[in-house]
């Protein structure tokens, strides 16, 4: 089924189930209030965030961080939100990313459109988005670059990637509904479909691949314990113009599992993912576990272990451990909730170094790539 038909089907499904899903909310004692315009001060709002870092590797280069250090490491975004009515919104986010001396910067635009979507809400617990929408998979997916809310400069690398082999957005549609929203146990379900492009970087080559026929979903179970939730999700898509396959085409499947326990003074999170690339006969398994504790209201200590391994070949006969292994320790200090400085040290070893061309082969690596990163983040 081509992309247009899948999008049409997704939109029809969304339109068909959304009113039904909205009807599952508890009956109101009074008739539905008419749709109202948003208050004047909230009709068009502008927000933004900014993270600027200095990073320096003590060994090999990973994720654009050279042993000579770089200030060319930042993420900036401006988010425009137009609240047309209490149920209808338009959202546009423009962004810029600088990743030091990463080869992906060859294809990274100066300014890009992160999101551009229309959202309609059917009641308080159901919504549909159409356009360039945030990818909803995972704990950090929708906020993966917002420095003032992240524990480190970036979200866990193996799970979320940065600059390559990932997309923060999907061109398509997403429907979301929360079942039993007013109950201690409630379930949020999101389904999405469409396509996206992503940069590939391997063996000194960079390339922009395109995906079609993407379908995916994310489910969150919110428990009666405040701050504790569990999630599962995944997606699959066809990819073309990929450098990972001789004929330029392949098929990806991903599934993820997440656990998140966040309280005011501490938080523990972990996620696991598996990616299978069919014709390339490549399977990636990644996981991380993170813990953070408030030493004071403003000062937080963070620790994280992030690892991935790859299986290659038809029967996955070749296993490459430590594809990218990162143990991180850090401190963050929030002068205000919207101004945060961070210092973090990463103990890294991995195989996809950027300062030499090395293949994915057990004979090569893993290589050390420890680095430190100092950053300041702000948002408004």
């Amino acid at each position, binding site marked *: 089924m081509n992309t247009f038909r899948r999008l049409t089907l997704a939109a029809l499904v969304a339109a068909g189930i959304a009113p039904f899903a909205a009807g599952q909310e508890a009956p109101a004692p009074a008739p*539905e*209030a008419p749709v109202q315009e948003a208050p004047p001060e*909230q009709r068009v709002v502008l927000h933004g965030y900014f993270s600027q870092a200095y990073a320096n590797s003590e060994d090999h280069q990973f994720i654009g961080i050279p042993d000579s250090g770089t200030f060319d490491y930042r993420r900036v975004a401006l988010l425009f*939100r137009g609240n047309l009515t209490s149920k209808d919104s338009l959202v546009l986010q423009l962004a810029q990313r600088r990743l030091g001396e990463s080869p992906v910067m060859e294809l990274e635009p100066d300014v890009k459109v992160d999101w551009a979507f229309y959202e309609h809400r059917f009641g308080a617990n159901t919504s549909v988005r159409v356009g360039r929408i*945030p990818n909803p998979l995972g704990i950090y997916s*929708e906020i993966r670059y917002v420095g003032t809310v992240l524990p480190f400069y970036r979200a866990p690398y193996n799970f979320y990637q940065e600059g390559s082999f990932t997309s923060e957005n999907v061109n398509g549609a997403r429907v979301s509904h929360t079942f039993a929203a007013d109950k201690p146990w409630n379930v949020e379900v999101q389904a999405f479909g469409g396509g996206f492009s992503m940069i590939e970087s391997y063996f000194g080559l960079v390339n922009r691949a395109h995906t079609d026929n993407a379908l995916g979903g994310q489910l969150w179970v919110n428990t009666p314990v405040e701050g504790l939730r569990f999630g599962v999700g995944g997606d699959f898509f066809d990819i073309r113009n990929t450098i990972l396959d001789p004929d330029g085409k392949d098929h990806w499947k991903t599934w993820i599992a997440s656990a998140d326990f966040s309280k*005011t003074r501490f938080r523990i999170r972990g996620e696991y993912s598996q990616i299978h690339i069919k014709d390339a006969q490549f399977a990636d398994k990644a996981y991380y576990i993170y813990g953070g504790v408030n030493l004071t*209201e*403003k000062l937080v200590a963070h620790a994280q272990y992030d690892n991935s391994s790859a299986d290659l070949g038809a029967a996955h006969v070749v296993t490459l451990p430590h594809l990218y292994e990162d143990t991180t320790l850090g401190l963050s200090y929030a002068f205000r*909730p919207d101004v945060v400085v961070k210092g973090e040290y990463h103990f890294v070893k991995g195989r996809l170094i950027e300062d030499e061309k090395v293949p994915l082969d057990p004979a090569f690596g893993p290589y050390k790539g420890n680095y430190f990163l100092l950053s300041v983040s702000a948002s408004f």
Partner: protein
Amino acid sequence: MRTFAPFVLLLALLGAASQSPAAEGYQVIVNVANPAAALPKDQLSKIFMKKVQKWESGQPIAPVDQDQASPARSAFSKAVHGKPVSAVASYWQQQIFAGRDVPPAEKASDAAVIAFVKANTGAVGYVSGNAPADVKVLAVE
């Protein structure tokens, strides 16, 4: 002493019962046309987190916060949300940058909050001192 003890106890109880919420650092106010007289604390928290969006009458609720540095905001946040302002601000940052929602309007002073509540029949806000007569005080249960 035993003669006075019940009297002293009665005075203490009366003092506790008549303690104004303004003594706690905030007082919740709504428009005089709003029929609501009281709200449970958790319901009030949900209103300001935009998880409850309509009054029982079906009218949309318009919550209004004060600036993050406001002492009234700090008192309200700890008493009603059970969290410091910074934790609530972090929640709203996640909502904003996930494209999901925006926080309630923020006003710089009690006077601005009062003006907003007077101008919007569905509005609910809080002030640091005792509320004037042209808005209605909402009891927090």
